[in-house]
């Protein structure tokens, strides 16, 4: 049970784990370049800029051209990174990513911050379809980190990975949930159980750890695997547990179509398995701005929504009323003041 979170447990946070890891990684890898679209400090590239000014390039707010520039740099033997908000790293220059980067399978790293509904910035800033868009591209690998440890170790984990990669990333104050490095193409087993299997990604894993902890305390034999590699989705240990499970709950901070629920349902259908799937994610809708707790509640991806999905999975009420508390909108929210 040590891998799960008790409700009252205070989390330890780390500040800019990715930004610091990116600088350290680039110190060892002189082929790494950093290219930004006016969001340098906003995407934790300011330390890189200060440390390696000759390898830093500001291309301004011109993402179509920026994407082609990444390709040109890669064609001359460099490994360019483009840290931006997820929406601007994927959807805005999508055609250019497809033809100039993904088709030739160039070693370019697209790093998308502000995943899903973690930003108050509203529909323009919330990357709710980025995983779907990037997963659709042949040659592209797709990962999402779940905590500070993964943010700090993901670059080493994919160092030898050839071809383009989309990294979905948390920024700023990031909780530490895990004590071992991210492993490419490996699910992170947090609990093993036969009655219900929860698969979660990104920030949803923190909530899932609390829910599964409580479920197990009430006698539910619940398993939990954190998924960081969304494409390819082929970890044999994960697939075997999906196959063996009676029911799987997926939890993602993303549209239901094209993300974690989709790769799991693909696996179930193509395997001919009888596993039932209960997905938690954003339904087929655009979203709006607000605080994280409010948005997660409003769009049905809160801790309470995961708990309700687990209850549906096991067919009985297992949680006390506490977890049913509705998310409340906050008049003042610290995250609103955070720079966009």
């Amino acid at each position, binding site marked *: 049970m040590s891998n799960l979170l008790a409700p009252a447990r205070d989390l330890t946070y780390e500040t800019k784990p990715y930004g610091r890891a990116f600088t350290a990684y680039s110190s060892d890898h002189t082929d790494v*370049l950093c290219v930004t679209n006016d969001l340098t400090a906003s995407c934790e590239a300011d330390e890189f800029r200060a440390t390696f000014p*000759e390898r830093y*390039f500001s*291309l*301004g707010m*011109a993402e*179509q*051209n*920026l*994407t*082609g*520039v*990444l*390709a*040109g*740099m*890669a*064609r*001359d033997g*460099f490994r360019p990174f483009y840290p931006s908000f997820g929406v601007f790293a994927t959807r805005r220059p999508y*055609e*250019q990513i497809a*033809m*100039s980067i993904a*088709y*030739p*399978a160039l070693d370019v790293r697209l790093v998308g911050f502000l995943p899903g509904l973690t930003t108050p910035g509203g529909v323009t800033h919330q990357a709710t379809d980025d995983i779907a868009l990037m997963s659709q591209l*042949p*040659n592209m690998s797709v990962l999402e980190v779940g905590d500070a440890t993964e943010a700090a170790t993901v670059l080493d984990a994919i160092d030898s*990975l*050839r*071809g*383009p990669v989309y990294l979905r990333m948390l920024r700023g104050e990031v909780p530490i949930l895990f004590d071992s490095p991210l492993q490419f193409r490996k699910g992170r087993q947090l609990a093993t159980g036969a009655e219900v299997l929860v698969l979660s990604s990104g920030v949803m894993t923190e909530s899932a750890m609390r829910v599964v902890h409580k479920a197990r305390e009430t006698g539910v034999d619940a398993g939990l695997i954190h998924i960081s590699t969304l494409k390819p989705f082929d970890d044999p240990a994960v697939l075997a547990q999906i196959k063996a499970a009676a029911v799987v709950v997926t939890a993602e901070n993303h549209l239901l179509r094209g993300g974690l629920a989709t790769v799991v349902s693909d696996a179930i259908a193509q395997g001919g398995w009888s596993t039932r799937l209960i997905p938690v994610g954003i339904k087929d809708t655009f979203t709006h701005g607000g605080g994280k707790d409010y948005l997660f509640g409003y769009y049905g991806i809160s801790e309470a929504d995961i708990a309700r999905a687990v209850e549906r999975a096991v067919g009985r009420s297992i949680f006390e009323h506490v977890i049913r508390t509705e998310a409340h909108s906050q008049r003042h929210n610290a995250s609103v003041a955070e720079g966009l």
Partner: protein
Amino acid sequence: MADEEVWVTQVKEHAHRVRQRAARVCAANHGGYFIQACGSAEIMTTLYAQLMDLGPSTGPLFPNDFDGVPRPGAPALVGDIYNGDRDRFYLSPAHYALGLYATLVEMGRLDHNVLDWANADGSTLELIGAEHSPGFETTTGSLAQALSVAVGQALVRKRFNRPGRIWALISDGEMEEGQTWEALQSAANFELDNLIVLLDANGVQVDGWVEDVMKTEPIPEKVAAFGWTMTEVDGHDPRSIAEAARNVVKGKPTFVVCRTNPIHSVPSLQGRHQLHYIRFRPGEVELVETDLGVLKEAHT
């Protein structure tokens, strides 16, 4: 012209044969991207014969058949091996593929018989080339993307003092795409004097004349205002093209507007409205071949 330099005469002869070769392929296919090869023949052959420092081709004279699209760690067939390993050449409108293949034949980088396989299934000499097609550095059938890639490569070569200039051939229809202007802006911002762009201003796009589809002129004034060294030349005059392309000013990227006639040497196509992709009408192939002397001259 009596005092014309030898190289100019040779380039003009190359350009004429590029038109003839393109005409043969299009005649066999009852149509094709013919005017692209016709209008840009002097630009393309001046680039290859006179301007670019390419180094020898390492591609086979008979290109291998298509062997799959690129995969991570396995780029498979790459068209740029036909362009050596020094300067790089980006052909932005991939619809000019036939003109590029014919130019590579003229330069001895492809066998003169390979155009018999142009557009054939399983051949890399595709109608709209991709980067497995001879001479192609990147995949540019979706227009206005190559200039940005060229900017990226020129940028790291300048920043890290790497040798070799970057050349790009773009088309005037692409001036309608916003990405073109983003690329022009960034090249000037980074003072890329190792980047030379030649624009084939043939006035043609799919729906008809560029000026009727969208007003893009005055291109020279616009590009100059973006901070480029800009020269406007007759795109059928190799000497003017070469002089303008060599007029590199330190700290500035170089842009040459080449005004061209899309049916240069093919007067029988005068008056046709639809030129982007020509479907020959009955009797038209014979007129085009007569214009270009295709039937009279031996298959060289």
